[in-house]
């Protein structure tokens, strides 16, 4: 009897997971052909990359290459902006009762929410890879295969963290437009604080920014791509980014709501 129940639960679990994966693939396909979405989350970092590239073509200070600082930041930006779409989409689905409709199917809602998150994570990763390829075409970086592989791992972790962050915002903000704005205006200052060389900031800010998830993501990705090794505080950044992802995930699991309340 117990074995039969376990088998039926296992079957139900695998059916749900299969449905969630198929859902994720469908959304991923839709993401990749969504011009408006790509214009912002991929076009914006690409525009920044070209701007920095053009403005650094003139005579440069031998000790400081701005492009080597800003390029990893644009890669990380392309990855992290996946969270913006997540923040908007989750709130929009709740607004338009799409979660309500999903809740009426036999697939558990958490499986579908995870599927939607996975599609966004992969989208973020693909956006980052596109900027990486553009950078390679422009001759900005030439990472070793092993450093590139590790950088891809950090990009994946960053995508997980910021997609979770987007979900957290959507959990607490009912309107999709407000959710997108809040993500953008929370994220962008953190991004700029994390992307510029810390020496340019006041002493107090230098102490604070090491704890920002944007700093952690940009430092981890940037050092791998440019130098091919972990930054000085690499373990702290790696642990911190994982911690942020876990905390955001737990908040989502506890407070997620499928309908406007």
């Amino acid at each position, binding site marked *: 009897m117990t074995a039969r129940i376990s088998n039926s639960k296992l079957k139900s679990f695998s*059916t749900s997971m299969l*449905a969630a994966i*198929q*859902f994720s693939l*469908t*959304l991923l396909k*839709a*993401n990749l052909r*969504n011009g408006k979405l790509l214009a912002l989350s991929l076009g914006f970092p690409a525009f920044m990359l070209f701007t920095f590239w053009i403005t650094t073509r003139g005579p440069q200070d031998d000790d400081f290459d701005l492009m080597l600082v800003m390029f990893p930041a644009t890669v990380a930006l392309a990855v992290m902006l996946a969270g913006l779409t997540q923040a908007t989409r989750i709130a*929009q689905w709740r607004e*338009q*009762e*799409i979660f*309500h*409709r*999903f*809740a*009426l*199917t*036999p*697939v558990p809602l958490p499986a*579908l929410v995870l599927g939607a998150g996975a599609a966004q994570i992969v989208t973020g990763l693909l956006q980052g890879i596109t900027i990486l390829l553009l950078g390679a075409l422009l001759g900005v970086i030439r990472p070793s295969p092993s450093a590139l592989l590790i950088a891809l791992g950090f990009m994946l972790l960053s995508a997980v963290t910021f997609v979770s962050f987007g979900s957290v915002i959507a959990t607490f903000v009912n309107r999709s437009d407000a959710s997108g704005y809040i993500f953008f205006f929370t994220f962008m200052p953190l991004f700029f604080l994390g992307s510029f060389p810390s020496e340019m900031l006041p002493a107090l800010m230098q102490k604070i920014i090491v704890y920002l998830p944007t700093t952690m993501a940009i430092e981890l990705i940037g050092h791998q791509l440019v130098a091919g090794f972990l930054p000085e505080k690499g373990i702290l950044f790696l642990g911190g980014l994982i911690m942020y992802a876990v905390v955001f995930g737990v908040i989502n699991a506890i407070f997620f709501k499928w309908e406007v309340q």
Partner: protein
Amino acid sequence: MQTSLEPVIRVENISKSFGSLMAVGSITFDVYRGEIFGLLGPNGAGKTTALTIIEGLRCADNGSVEVLGMDVSTNAASIKARIGVQLQTTSLLPDLEAIEQVMLFSRLYGIPYDRSAAQSLLEDFDLGDKARSRPGKLSGGQKQRLAIALALVNEPEIVLLDEPTSGLDPQSRRKLWRFINDLQAHGRTIVLTTHYMEEAETLCDRVGIIDHGRLLALDTPVNLINQMDGRTTISTPALLPPIPLQEIPGVIDVFSDGEEVHIQTKDVVLVLEGLINHAKKSAVSLGNLHIRQPNLEDVFLNFTGHKIRN
């Protein structure tokens, strides 16, 4: 219309409150296999809340609901696999084409459709040429038809439609009625909510009239109208100064909804004579006076004392 007396939904004494607001109060009804059952009432009457309790998405504070012989509170997953639902908001994924929505939802029910099966379902709903369109490119009627098509991907025995024609133009509404009749012809039981009297009268085998969370009447549209005992309604814009209408010979009842006064009578000629005499004496114009045979609107008015408010 093949209906039987086998109840496929049994709702017993359910009530539901949100804080101090009573959305549904002690409602009881059965829905029989093969019928089109309508819940008729104004917006905010409690129709959608009742529907979400039947769907198993909300728990009733009191009472019980059985769908296809199963208690919704303990068998929600099994029930979901055997019912189809269309929500008032259509709830379509904005980034997916119509055909992708059909294929996706079929997968969520574990019955994956290939492209040709999905195309065929869309064609059944006159959406064949819209297969590659996203919801943003569909009209209101097309979105509602797509939402109903999605409700059918799992071949459900019961289809729940929440205000399926709300906001549609008369032509689209009638087109959708034909689709709903077709669903019934294919043996499905349909529960729909509406605030359109004509829709309830035309489509439904039985209608429950609901207002302020209470089920006020439940019967076939014909029987409900017959309860009006052949009363004809004479409506006239609100009269100033007011005429003592109750005193006119032949008047059975008088209601006012603020805009119009509705006079119920079995003797139209007698009441019209009295009304004209009173209007002459009081030097009041009767304005846009019109006469109607009894319909569900009058039944609603009779039970609630007010017209259905949208």
